[in-house]
């Protein structure tokens, strides 16, 4: 193992890791928005919205994220959507994880005991009032851990945008391999940085989950 090489290149990897973190944060934020909208659609009273929500989930989950990114980045210009690689990465990854988050959020909402809705409605609350005051506060607590699983997957998933040449961690590792011919060291270094980011995120989610637990 070429330790000297690692010491020489790691600052560049950290710089690239910052791009990975930015991609993660922005795409997860977009994913949460898509997930909230998707779950609302899937649980809507309106059949058309339920259909749109279900279609979103099945199309996105039924195709590889890589293909989705390629359609957006390479196919986009053909239909007049011109995005730089980073923006395409954020949108592609965000819309993708949003489909998984749709199901996570929907699952947490329907996991809240039916009796809670019944009690709220019996007191005279409307569907929306019951949802906001009784169901969602409980569902939010239920969805933190499973959303953590989605977030974990998404951080690793940012590696895909190397394929549309966003200069993030994986792309940087590949670039240094091309000049150093040391794939073992380079991928190991990249992997360790992913591990640090994901461990820190996991710890933050566990902390949040404990903090909002119903005592």
């Amino acid at each position, binding site marked *: 193992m070429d330790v000297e090489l690692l010491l020489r290149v790691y600052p560049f990897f950290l710089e690239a890791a910052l791009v990975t973190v930015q991609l993660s944060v922005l795409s997860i934020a977009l994913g949460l928005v898509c997930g909230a909208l998707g779950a609302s659609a899937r649980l809507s009273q309106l059949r058309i919205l339920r259909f749109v929500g279900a279609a979103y989930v099945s199309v996105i989950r039924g195709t590889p994220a890589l293909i989705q990114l390629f359609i957006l980045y390479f196919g986009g210009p053909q239909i007049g959507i011109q995005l730089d690689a980073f923006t395409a990465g954020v949108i592609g990854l965000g819309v993708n994880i949003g489909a998984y988050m749709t199901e996570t959020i929907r699952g947490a909402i329907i996991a809240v005991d039916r009796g809670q809705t019944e009690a709220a*409605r*019996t007191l*005279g*609350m409307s569907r929306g009032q019951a949802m906001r005051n009784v169901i969602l506060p409980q569902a939010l607590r239920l969805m933190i851990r499973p959303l953590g699983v989605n977030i974990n997957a998404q951080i690793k998933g940012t590696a895909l945008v190397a394929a549309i040449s966003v200069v993030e961690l994986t792309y940087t590792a590949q670039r240094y391999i091309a000049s150093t011919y040391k794939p073992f060291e380079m991928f190991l270094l990249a992997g360790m940085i992913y591990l640090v980011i994901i461990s820190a995120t996991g710890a933050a989610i566990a902390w949040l989950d404990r903090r909002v637990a119903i*005592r």
Partner: protein
Amino acid sequence: MSTTESEMAGNGPMIDVKNAAKRYGTVEVLRGINLQVRKGEIVAVIGPSGSGKSTFLRAINNLDPLSSGEVWLEDVQVNKPLTSYQYERHINRVRQDIGMVFQHFNLFPHLSVRQNITLAPRMLKRLSKQEADGLAEQQLRRVGLIDRIDFMPSQLSGGQKQRVAIARALAMQPKVMLFDEATSALDPELVEEVNFVMRQLAESHMTMIIVTHEMGFAQDVCDRVLFMDGGMVVEEGSPDVIFRNPSQERTRSFLRKHLKGRN
């Protein structure tokens, strides 16, 4: 309540259920039930599981809508045929007048006892925080739990939870209270404290419809008992008649099973 009293009131019944029927596909759960409950009257509904008594109770506030038939609360039809938007507004208003207590309490676990009670009055009756707090304190005194006002539901025993659930329902100042097997999920030693609260409520002339498995309680507290089986009211009468001298064989056989080993 005596006949003269109800005649003096001069009004129609508090609750009037006309020909209530409910089907799930081909299964008939309720087969044409009629029930009139006077103001201040306490009616027990007994019967074997699957007899439709809970479904019937839940039809009264339209939690389980009927397939056909009418439910009236005084001069308002609870299950009025309306467009879904109008119906939502109508039913939310009507339900404020019909308190309901569930077998599994259904307290809101993320809210304190105080918040459980004040949430709906503050939101729906636009009470100020002080007014709502006063109401919560008043209702908690009534059920003997004022010292638990800032507890979370998870810190309460089953009996205490159910008493809070009763206080929560009472805080909306309903005209009628529905009890759906309110003590069935409780450990035997906790049943009495809930029965005590219900008895007090009965003495304050609350109109009550009580679905119960507790024959002793039905006999002591209620003015009238309905025995249901197979989605129908098999027999109906005063507790004395139903429990001591039922006319129907099905009632007798049900009571034999349920009274065995008691007293």
